[in-house]
């Protein structure tokens, strides 16, 4: 417990706000009728998640979250919506009676199970830290201990680019090209 009108209290308030942003964004993302709004919700949720990362003492990852998720992934999804969804009100129109409540129940169960698990486990704090987890340390780790993974992810990204190009290019007929 910290007093409300102190730096810690204020930061706690902002934390609550960030959590609310995250959850609200997630709810919009899953529950809105229009896909475009769902993407907006996703963007809001990601901004909230970035805030959470900031509270987890990692501003670098927080900014990367914004750069990659908001700036790239969300934009790509909006783009796909524009290309593939001409009627903006298609979303959850054709659902059977079961899927709604069923999925809701499943979601609740998962949430309950996971949080129960989190609450019941006795988490052990580490005895000491190897380093302070700063940006320099992350960079060093990326290029030493995890360099193989680093290389692999670059490969994955390259493959993803090529794969996406191959998939999306096929079948494009230019208007007026034939005849």
């Amino acid at each position: 417990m910290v007093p409300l009108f102190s730096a810690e209290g204020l930061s706690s308030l902002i934390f609550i706000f960030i959590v609310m942003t995250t959850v609200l964004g997630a709810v919009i993302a899953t529950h809105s009728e229009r896909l475009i709004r769902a993407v907006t919700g996703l963007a809001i949720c990601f901004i909230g998640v970035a805030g959470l990362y900031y509270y987890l003492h990692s501003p670098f990852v927080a900014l990367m979250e914004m750069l990659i998720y908001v700036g790239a992934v969300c934009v790509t999804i909006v783009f796909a919506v524009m290309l593939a969804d001409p009627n903006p009100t298609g979303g959850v129109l054709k659902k059977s009676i079961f899927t709604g409540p069923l999925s809701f129940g499943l979601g609740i169960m998962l949430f309950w199970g996971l949080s129960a698990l989190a609450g019941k486990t006795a988490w052990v704090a580490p005895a000491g830290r190897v380093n302070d987890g700063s940006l320099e340390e992350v960079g060093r780790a990326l290029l030493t201990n995890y360099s193989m993974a680093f290389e692999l992810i670059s490969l994955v990204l390259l493959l993803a680019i090529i794969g996406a190009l191959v998939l999306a290019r096929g079948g494009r007929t230019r208007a007026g090209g034939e005849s």
Partner: protein
Amino acid sequence: MSIPAFGDSLITYLIIAALLFGIGFYGLVHRRTLIGMLIAGELILAGASINFMAFNRFLAPDPTVGQIFTLFIMGIAAAEAAIALSIIIAVYRNYRTIDTDDVAELKG
């Protein structure tokens, strides 16, 4: 007046992560369009990332590991989004819809 320091306890983050995961899962089952499912999938990934970051902050002896994991997840998510969207576009080209039910061609 006083307020609990939420931002400083592991369990808060775990619950938020579980909540995101649950919402994401709900969306994944509940949505009938490919893009909607992709969005839900991103939420699930976000929940996982939060878990990693939280453990990293409170439990890990080497606090770079979780960050690197999260960065990798981001990379994978970006790749996944690109691939998934190009698949969606391809599906849309062929079937004129991104509704998962209508795409099931082999279904009688």
